[in-house]
């Protein structure tokens, strides 16, 4: 165990010694199942447009309020390629509740099940809601932590910055929730 720990520490120091900053950080790629059983991969989604990835779960009232508040934003920007991915970090035992809840809410978003919290961990999420705007180059260009009513205006401003220009060829249509 001590050897393995030393290896981890050495790995961290190696990075510290040779690291160099970049303007934006790369978004970790992932593949997860959505609530309809389809496999969804981040790098496939990014071919269609930028992704707003929000971490939520059923007890998180502010997360649900944010996803509700983003509905008109999504409606106005989806044709330009915006995709909203609601990353559910509910436990495996709550999968059926999540599915029923999403259907009742009629969210048009891509709802992914991160039951083992692998993506939550890869993105270092500790506060819910936390959301990342990922541009088409796979870089995290904006982070939004927490939610208060009205935040959606600021989020929409950030989203617009990273959408393809209006006169460009529209991206291929992203997969839609059924």
């Amino acid at each position, binding site marked *: 165990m001590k050897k*393995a*720990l030393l*290896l*981890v*520490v050495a*790995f*961290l120091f*190696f*990075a*510290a010694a*040779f*690291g*160099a*900053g*970049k303007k*934006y*950080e*790369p*978004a*970790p790629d992932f593949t997860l199942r959505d609530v*309809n*059983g*389809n496999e969804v991969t981040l790098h496939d989604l990014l071919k269609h447009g930028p992704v707003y990835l929000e971490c939520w779960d059923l007890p998180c009232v502010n997360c649900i*309020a944010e996803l*509700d508040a983003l509905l008109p934003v999504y409606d106005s920007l989806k044709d330009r390629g915006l995709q909203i991915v609601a990353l559910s970090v509910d*436990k*495996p*035992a*709550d999968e*059926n*509740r999540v*599915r*029923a*809840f999403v*259907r*009742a*809410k*009629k969210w048009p978003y891509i709802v992914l099940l991160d*039951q*083992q*919290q692998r993506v939550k*961990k*890869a*993105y*270092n999420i*500790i*506060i819910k809601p936390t959301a*990342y705007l990922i541009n088409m180059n796979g*870089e*995290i*260009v*904006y*982070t939004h*932590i*927490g939610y*208060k*009513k*009205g*935040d959606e205006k*600021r989020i929409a401003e950030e989203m617009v910055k990273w959408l393809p220009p209006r006169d460009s060829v529209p991206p291929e249509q992203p997969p839609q929730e059924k």
Partner: protein
Amino acid sequence: MGIGSLLVLSSVFGASLTIQGVNRAEFWAYQQDWATHYEDKLELSARYSDFDAELGVLWFEPSKHGPSVRKPLHLLDYAIGYNPEELEVRLGRFYTTFGQGLTLSSGADDDFRHYKSLHGLFGRLKLPLSSEVTLLGGRLRDVFFQENTYKIMNELDTTDQVLGADLTIRPIQFFGLGTRYVRINREVDPTARAFTELFGGDCRLDIGPVSAGAEFAWRLGTKPGIGGRETGTGYILNLSTALAGFSILAQYVNYLRLGFPPGTYHYNDPPTPIKSGVSINRGVDEQGFGVQASGTIPNGLYIEADLARLFVHDDTSAGVLEGEFKTRQSLGTNWTFELKFNHMLQKNIELGTYERITDRPAILLNYLTGPHTFTLEAELGWVTELPTDTTHGSNWRYHEPLISVSYGLGEKWLFTIGWQGVDKDSLKRYDNQTSWPVFETVYNINERNVLRLRIGAEKGGYTCSGGVCRYEAPFRGMKLQLISRI
């Protein structure tokens, strides 16, 4: 900006090395005796191409006045992983749950401060037909925050050996199957043959708006102390349907001697149908159902109704009954209203309480104007309680009001003033206290750091998450929390 990577190293191969982390530092000062509590939870990870490494530190240092209550906890965890596209191999700490948790369940719950981790070797391989096989071998550690202190719930059993295998397959999109096996070799078992095995399986069918699923598990174990084989069984059935924005979910559970071991921690965690997460004994002897109907009707009105019941096999009067109705409506972009009514009956659930019935209407009102946000939350609980100790009467009726007002200024600040009370004294649950005023401010320093200051009192009480419950001791004093993304 971004997820908080400390460093990014580009390589000639186009891969990059990323180091990132989260640190949660907390300092508590108790008003009563000026004792303190310092806690730091650091999670660091590094990723390069298909390799990753993790380092976790939990440093808990209370300053209580005697060694019996001053129980520091210092944990250092690591993991090394290799994750090419179809494979994941991990050495060190890992979390995984098989199926819905009837055979094996582990995970980290930061909100509830419950960290049930496995330590050993983990492998997962993706196969054709959307199938996946998982193999693991390790030891379990259950760290739980209870009565304002961290405890390793399985302190005497952390050397127990857990071996597991899980196979899931989804050959067609609307049909999936799973099968699993877990073997636990406990140090307390009297002979080498006295191990415990859990077998499980599940199936799932999605046809149009209808989803149906079933999971079962069978436990073959050893009777504690005396030896001899002991069996347990459990299953959970789910059915849900959704149409035109309305959905109905029905669940039925039946567990008998499945939760293992029947003490303060479990290797498995069979789900509870109770929405608020209450369970009776976490799969040792439980039977019940849950029904949830929800929908969004025109004008954006969201409504939800839940009804769930859980009881033990030999006494259907003991257990939990919960009913809840909730509605939420936004008016324009400025106003949001939420109304909720919760009814709960708990019989023989809490230590010292034979029966407790609560009726709890609540209202939440949110108003936004410019950069200013105002939130009002109010709740009144009507409680009828039959205590097991009748020194202060055998039938208590009292009220539990709650009110809180928040003001948010832009993205940076949030201020909250709140009060909770109870109009009955001599309640052991609340240390005989009756009033809990609190002031809290949250300052978003920047995208990487959030500071939270809370001064006043917290009521505590019996709380649950996903079937795991604990008694939270009341608190008076100051709490300072800094969450940093590294």
